[in-house]
């Protein structure tokens, strides 16, 4: 009993020390240049069932840019870290199919983390995950109208792993799988926060599926009180 107590105290102390020497990495991703106009998704509007869910003509969402240039849907992550995934115990990430569109369309998860795919539509979808990295399994699963949730996991790190619905071929989501918990996806203002990054020097990369598919990098030193890193990605 005494031994267990000592072990528990040791684990708790280690965790406390780690948090004490960890800080949040925050920043903003800004788009430089004028992105092309988004395209009208006419097949969606023309679809007898799905078209009813949209009063106005739906458009693609490749570049979601705030008034100040902040770029949403950018995945920011630490580079060069592997085998630190806590995905098995992390809360599931939800991908919903709503009004015949994936919501959200850009997400990031850890390796081994559960992705829960919902179908909130009264229409059939097929959930087709199409990885490009060996070790991540491709699946094509039917999901009936308002059907039971599906769960998927991926074991290998991969940027922008494609999810699509072949029944409604304009429906896409892009899942970035990371082998550690130090990543974030920018919000509508282009802002991000990566929590509890252990103090140290890192290469941080910002990936946008269109503007920076290979990533824009910078060196950052994270201290106990955190760090700030702003990125600019350019569209020509």
């Amino acid at each position: 009993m005494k031994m267990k107590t000592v072990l528990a105290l040791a684990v708790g102390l280690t965790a406390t020390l780690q948090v004490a020497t960890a800080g949040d990495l925050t920043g903003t991703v800004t788009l430089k240049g004028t992105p092309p106009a988004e395209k009208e998704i006419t097949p969606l509007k023309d679809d007898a069932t799905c078209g009813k869910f949209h009063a106005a003509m739906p458009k693609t969402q490749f570049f979601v840019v705030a008034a100040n240039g902040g770029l949403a849907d950018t995945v920011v992550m630490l580079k060069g870290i592997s085998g630190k995934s806590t995905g098995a115990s992390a809360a599931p990430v939800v991908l919903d199919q709503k009004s015949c569109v994936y919501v959200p369309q850009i997400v990031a998860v850890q390796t081994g983390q559960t992705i829960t795919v919902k179908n909130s539509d009264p229409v059939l979808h097929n959930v087709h995950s199409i990885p490009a990295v060996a070790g991540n399994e491709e699946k094509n699963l039917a999901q009936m109208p308002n059907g039971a949730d599906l769960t998927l996991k991926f074991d290998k790190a991969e940027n922008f792993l494609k999810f699509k619905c072949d029944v409604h071929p304009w429906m896409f989501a892009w899942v970035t799988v990371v082998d550690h918990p130090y990543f974030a996806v920018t919000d509508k203002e282009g802002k991000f926060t990566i929590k509890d990054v252990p103090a140290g020097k890192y290469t941080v990369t910002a990936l946008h599926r269109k503007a920076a598919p290979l990533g824009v990098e910078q060196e950052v030193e994270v201290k106990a009180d955190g760090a700030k890193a702003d990125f600019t990605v350019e569209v020509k």
Partner: protein
Amino acid sequence: MNDEKNTSAAGGDFIIHSPWLHRFALLTVAATLGLIGIGGLVTSKAVGMSVPDWPTSYGYHMFALPIATWLTGGVFHEHTHRLWATIVGVLVVALMRWLGGRTARRALLIIGGAEILAGFALLALGPDWRGAGHFLSGIGGVVLLAGVVWVNSSPAARPLPALGWWAFWLVQVQGLLGGLRVVLDAHVVAGAKLGMVFGLIHGCLGQAFLLLLCVIALLTSRWWQKQHSESGIQNPECSAQRWFLFTTVMIFLQLILGATMRHQHAGLAIPDFPLAHGKLWPDTSPAAVASYNAVRFELAGENPITAAQIWLQLAHRALAVVILSAVAVCAWRTRGFLRRPALIWLGLILVQAGLGAWTIWSNKAADVATAHVLVGALSLVTGALLTIITFRFSGAARQ
């Protein structure tokens, strides 16, 4: 039936000409052209995997899929393609039986029986094989029925029974390829996704299959038999046999290039025409390709484009110019009664070039891209039949 028959040296009779056989061959050709059209729509709309299983559809027997599911989005196109293919399959078995006559019965009985037994064997393997078992035993049932009925029918003149057997096997291979394209979609061999590979072969073989049926239709026609039986064959004054052959081969090569582009599901590798990314010769450096991908918004062809895909489309454009020039030469060098068909061929190629340009200007609209596939098939068939006719006359002229 108004069939004209003759007796072979071995003593058996055979059909020289049957108007209803010819009409049935034309019906099979029309059904196959429709099948290529709906198959083209499946690829153009990128809905090939909208029914994830095969030969079942969402777990249902192919003919028992609920109508509400059938009418949902891309399921409509994919499932209709499957049902239509079944009709073509039955038509081809019947056509083969008609062409082969009583001499084909024994083989059909054996094949049909074997397929039924194999289907039942698959059913016994377990629930995972149920769909395949029903599919195979269903085909076997159709084949067996074809062998049972119409006991004393006369075969068609050679080489039609052999061509019928080719069609019989090809239609089954095509069905299997279509199914494997679905069930093996996720598998990768030597870096190539099997779904893409099987889809590509399925698309190209479909064109060859249509061509074979068109040859059968030509050889069963009154016109062909008349030319065959008359000693004084009209000389079409055609000195372009090799040009016809060369051009037809080029068209088939062009169809393979087109099918390769379509099955990569990368949308338009070059979004403008007649220029290419705003230039006569586009920049295909990694930086340039990255900039193209950054600003291209494809609704369905979501895969990023590569330099190789740009070169592929440039090759498609260059070959189009070669084909257009070659067909013009064929039309120019053809005299006599083949002059008009050769001009029709030239017209088809001009329409095809226009549809190619329109495909780009419409950002690969599914109906335009599919029309491009269909006119491509008609161009191939026209060229191949004209080639056969010119060589046929060439051979006769030497006799």
